[in-house]
C-alpha cells in the first residue's frame, strides 16, 4: 500500500464514462504504481476494458461517448487540450484480446510504430526488431523468418508479436486487454512469463481472462463490478482476504 502513495505512474480521478447515455464507469478513482502489474478484474461488462482504452485515449475513435473526471500520467492530465494523442499512445502501448497482426511481414509489424514515429535508420530498426521480439519471448521462434507473413504465425505467436509490436515503441505503460483469452495454456504461460520480465521496466495494466490468471500475475488488483470499482489493493491481500463480500463471492466463484 505504501508504494501506492508515492508517485503513482497513473492516477485515475473520479472518472465516469458512458456510451450514448449508457454508463460504463461510475466515479472510479485508482492509482496505478510504476513497474508493477496491476490487474483489473471482475465479470464482463464491468468497465475494465473501457478504463484501459481511456488510459491511451483509444476511445477517442468512438462517437457519442461522454467522460468526466481526470486521468493523469506522471502527473499530467492526458485529456488536457493540446496533448499530442499519437505521442501519448507511443508512451502507453496496448495489446488487444484478439491478436491482429497488421498485413505484411513479421518485421513490418514491429517496424510499423517506430517508422510512424520517424525512425528510418536501418540499423536502428534492426535493433528494435530484435530487442522487442526478445522481450516478448518470440525471437528464437521467428529470427530466421522475419520477412515471412505475420499471418502465418500461430495464435500464441501472433499475440506475442502484438506484444513485441507495442514494445517496439519503448512505451512506459503497457495495457493488455485479455491478452491470453484466445491462447492455449502453454502459450498463456509464455505470455505471462514475459510479463514478469517486462514489469522490471514497464508499468503494466492487464485485464486478465480469468480470476486464476488475475491471482497469478497481480502485484496490485482492482475489482470492478458493473462500472464501479469495488475494492483495490495489493494482489496478495485482495485474493486472500478481500474486504468486500462481493469481491469474495466473485473470487470464490459464487458468481461471474
Amino acid at each position: 500500500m505504501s508504494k501506492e502513495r508515492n508517485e503513482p505512474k497513473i492516477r485515475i480521478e473520479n472518472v465516469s464514462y458512458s456510451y450514448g447515455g449508457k454508463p460504463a464507469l461510475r466515479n472510479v478513482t485508482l492509482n496505478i504504481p510504476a513497474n508493477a502489474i496491476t490487474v483489473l478484474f471482475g465479470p464482463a461488462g464491468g468497465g475494465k476494458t473501457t478504463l484501459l482504452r481511456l488510459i491511451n485515449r483509444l476511445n477517442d475513435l468512438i462517437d457519442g461517448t461522454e467522460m468526466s473526471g481526470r486521468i493523469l500520467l506522471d502527473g499530467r492530465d492526458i485529456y488536457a487540450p493540446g496533448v499530442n494523442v499519437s505521442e501519448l499512445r507511443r508512451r502507453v502501448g496496448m495489446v488487444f484480446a484478439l491478436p491482429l497482426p497488421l498485413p505484411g511481414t513479421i518485421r513490418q509489424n514491429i517496424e510499423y510504430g517506430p517508422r510512424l514515429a520517424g525512425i528510418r535508420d536501418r540499423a536502428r530498426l534492426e535493433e528494435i526488431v530484435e530487442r522487442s521480439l526478445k522481450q516478448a519471448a518470440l525471437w528464437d521462434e521467428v529470427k530466421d523468418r522475419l520477412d515471412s507473413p505475420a499471418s502465418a504465425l500461430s495464435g500464441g505467436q501472433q499475440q506475442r508479436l502484438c506484444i513485441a509490436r507495442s514494445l517496439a515503441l519503448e512505451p512506459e505503460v503497457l495495457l493488455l486487454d485479455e491478452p491470453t483469452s484466445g491462447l492455449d495454456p502453454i502459450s498463456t504461460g509464455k505470455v505471462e512469463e514475459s510479463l514478469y520480465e517486462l514489469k522490471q521496466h514497464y508499468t503494466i495494466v492487464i485485464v486478465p481472462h480469468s480470476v486464476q490468471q488475475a491471482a497469478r500475475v497481480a502485484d496490485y488488483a482492482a475489482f470492478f463490478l458493473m462500472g464501479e470499482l469495488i475494492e483495490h489493493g495489493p494482489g496478495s491481500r485482495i485474493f486472500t482476504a478481500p474486504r468486500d463480500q462481493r469481491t469474495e463471492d466473485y473470487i470464490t466463484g459464487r458468481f461471474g
Partner: protein
Amino acid sequence: MNRYLTQRLGFALLTLATLIVVVPILLVVATIIIRGMSVISWEFLTAMPRNGMKEGGILPAIVGTLLLTLGTALAAIPIGVGGAIYLAEYARDNWLTRAIRLAIINLAGIPSVVYGLFGLGLFVLFLHFGTSILAGSLTLAIMTLPIIISTAEEALRSVPMEFRTVSASLGGTRWQGIRYIVLPQALPGIITGVILGLLRAAGETAPILFTVAAFYLPRLPRSPFDPTMALPYHLYVISTQVPGMPLGIQYGTALVLLALVLSMNVVATVIRSYYRRRREW
C-alpha cells in the same frame, strides 16, 4: 422419389435460367466478331475515315474514346476515391452524410442523357470549354463518380475496424492508418469500382453527344479543348445517320469498341487478383 424429382426439376429450371442469360450474350459477341472480323485490318485501325466514313479507318474514334476514358479517369479517380475516404473514414453518421449517400445512390440512377444535358449547360456553355474533350471527360466523370464512390466506400468499410484501432494504438494518426493499412487493403475493391465506372464511361453515347463528340472529324485532336470522334457515338452515327453504310464497317466498329472494353476488364481483373493475392487476412 418425389422430392428427388422436384430437385431435378429445380436444377433444370435454374440451369435453363442461366442459359437464357448466357446465350444471348454469347450470340451478340459471336455475331459481332464474325461479321466484324472481315473489316478489321491495319488500315481500319490506323487510318482516317474517307468518303463520308464509308471507307478508310476509324482511328480518330479510337483515339477519342481512349482520350475521353483517360480524362474521365484523371478527374473521377481522385475525387471519387477522396469522397469515398471521407464518407467511410471521417464523416460522422448524421443527416448530412445520409443525405449525401442518398444523393450518390440516386445519381447512379439518372439517365445518361441527362448527364449529357448537364454537361452541355455547365462545361460547354457556362464554363466556355466548348464542345471539347475536357467538357466530355468531365461530364463522363460526373456520371462515373457515384459508381466509384459507392464501390470504394464499400471496399474501405470491409476493412475491419480493428486495423484502424491497432494503427492508432501504435501512435498512428487517423490518416496514417488509412494511408498505410486501410487503403492498401481496400485497393482491389477500389480498382474494381474504378474500372466498372470507366467501362461504363467508355461505352456511353448520350453524355458525349452534346459535349464532345464530332459527327465527322477526320483528324486527331490537338488539345483538351478540341472536339473528337468517339467509338460509341461513331457507331451510332454510321448505324443510323449515314445512308448506304457498308454493314461490315458497323460491325467492325462495334468489335473494336467491344475489344477495348473487354481488354480493360481483363486488365482490371489481373490487377485485382494480384493485389488480392498479396492480401494476408
